[in-house]
């Protein structure tokens, strides 16, 4: 399951990043809190495929499908 598959209100732990994410960007995701083992919840899933809102610690980020579908969660 990927982060993009999380429904509104659901949460899961990051298990790993897809190898297709460039290493610089993988580091940035870690710095923002999207780190393997981190608990992420989907706080908002707007309709029409708009980017979803994810909460990590006390911060909310918006990620679109192109990146959220490359982050595996369990």
């Amino acid at each position: 399951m990927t982060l993009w598959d999380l429904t509104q209100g659901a949460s899961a732990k990051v298990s790993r990043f897809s190898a297709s994410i460039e290493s610089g960007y993988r580091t940035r995701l870690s710095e923002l809190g999207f780190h393997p083992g981190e608990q992420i919840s989907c706080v908002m899933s707007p309709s029409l495929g708009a980017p979803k809102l994810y909460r990590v610690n006390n911060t909310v980020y918006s990620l679109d499908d192109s990146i959220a579908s490359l982050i595996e969660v369990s």
Partner: protein
Amino acid sequence: MSSTQVSKIALIGSPNSGKSLLFNRLTGLNQKVANFPGITVDIASGKSADGNNIEYLDFPGVYSLQTISGEEKIAVQAFMSALQDDVLEAVICVVDCTRLEKGLIFALQVLEVCHRYNKPVLIAANMIDILDVHDMHFNAASLSEALKVSVLPVSAKTSAGLAEIPEALAQASVPPASFQSDIIASDESINHLHAQELAEKYGPKGDLLIKAQTRLDSFFLHSWLGGLSFFIIMYLLFQSIFTWAAPVMDGVESIIQWLASVVLPMIPPGVASDFTSDALFGGIGAFLVFVPQIFVLTLVVGMLEDSGYLARAAVICHKPLRFFGLTGKSFIPMLSGVACAIPGIYAARTVESTRKRWLTYLAIPLMPCSARLPVYSLIIAAFIPAQKAFGGLVGWQGLAMFSIYLFGILCALFVTAVVSRSSAELRTDLPFVLEMPPYRLPSWRPLLRNAWNRSKHFVTKAGKVIFAVTVVIWVLGYFPNYGASLGDSWLGSMGRWIEPIFAPFGLDWRYGVAILSSFLAREVFVGTLGTLFGIDSAGEDFTSLAQQIQESGLPLGAGAALLVFFAIALQCVSTLAVLKRETGSWRLPVQLFVSYSIFAYVAALAMFHLVEFLT
């Protein structure tokens, strides 16, 4: 620190850590504070407001010293070179204490480089007021002990702890070597684990995310309520700059007319009197009338920025913009472009992907900037009746303005959609990850100051160009026959020479001259036309320029063609210069100038024939 010499102190921190507000509080300067990730794109500096010999340097917010975007690269390079400078006494690293883990990941990197360059560091743990409200605490003393640098809890919002900064700086020490020899080049996960451990031990515990944020997000990002509110907010933005600014504009016009009626009788008839009447009151006066609109627009856009709504607007716009080859992050630069292309081009640095940034550059000059506003207002006032519809809620002129603004935006999207599809290398992209700042009430004072500064800048910078062009045009139009006949003046001869270029849109030579002069800056068009009509009707009453255009019998098709031409053509020397600075070469600005001029000419011609066919 020496007490006689000025000490330079660098401020660095992540976006939304409240760094810019802290800088404002420390310096009392008019530095722009915005609630959108990465809005500070230049390094601001200011002397300490409390009279200490301290000069603060505000570096743009970055998430990491390992950069992924053009903007971050500029900021980090500037910070690294400042660290190597002997005059830099210390570094203040601003972290949001409500999100300590994230702040510490960055702070650990800063400590490491400051150790390397032997600079003392003070960690300013900002937003302590939010912890107080939630009755939460964090252990600054123990964190300070663990990190072996000073940690000072502050609140830029309430000014709590700010008075202690100079003393804390004086006592700040160089961070010791960390457990890692080179943290930014090493595995990020070690840094992350260390930050997590520190935040868990000393940071505030509990749910700090304001519930109101989630509630507001579920409204503003709701499938149809969100879309509806987005359109209402954007529509109000346009109404505010046209309908709501009108009384102030009328006031400015009355003052200019009153001044003209007082000053003109004092000057004996002759060259001086004609110059004052036509060039000063006619040319400059016509342009000053539009300053209130620029003020209102800057204020409203700033308000949206500060409230946190703009980040939500980027989320709403992301999917549709992606269709046109852009990203939700292009929305802020493009919206800034509605005020002025120049801040828009600077703001495009926040678009990490080089390709999307270039596409954003293509879009910005087509956004309906405030310099086009005087031209639009003039043409609309000349052709559209000032009547209201729907019980006085909507003015026809406001609606016409909305349409021409929409036309510019659609042109921008059309261009990016075509270009992004025609080039394979423009199709791939960096992913979309955007921090959602908390909603907050805008701080009025910085916003008003910013709007005032923008208006002042517009008057002083654009005003100089406009005055110079106005004087040249007036001299060319007045001599050699002392204003007896404009047709026989030098300008008349030049105008007739270029008349064939603009004649296909039904425009006579006066408009041709005004368009040519507007290639310096769009708003010069109004001043030039004011001067030209002023000279033409010398001795008549001081009627508004719009009325004179109306009376000159300009066909509707020509008016529509003018609007279309101004919506597309890249007549702005400053925009071209800034594009050159940002892209590092003249290639893009020259390409854009030539292609948008041709596009504008062809579209204006098509518009003229369409309107003539329909009417």
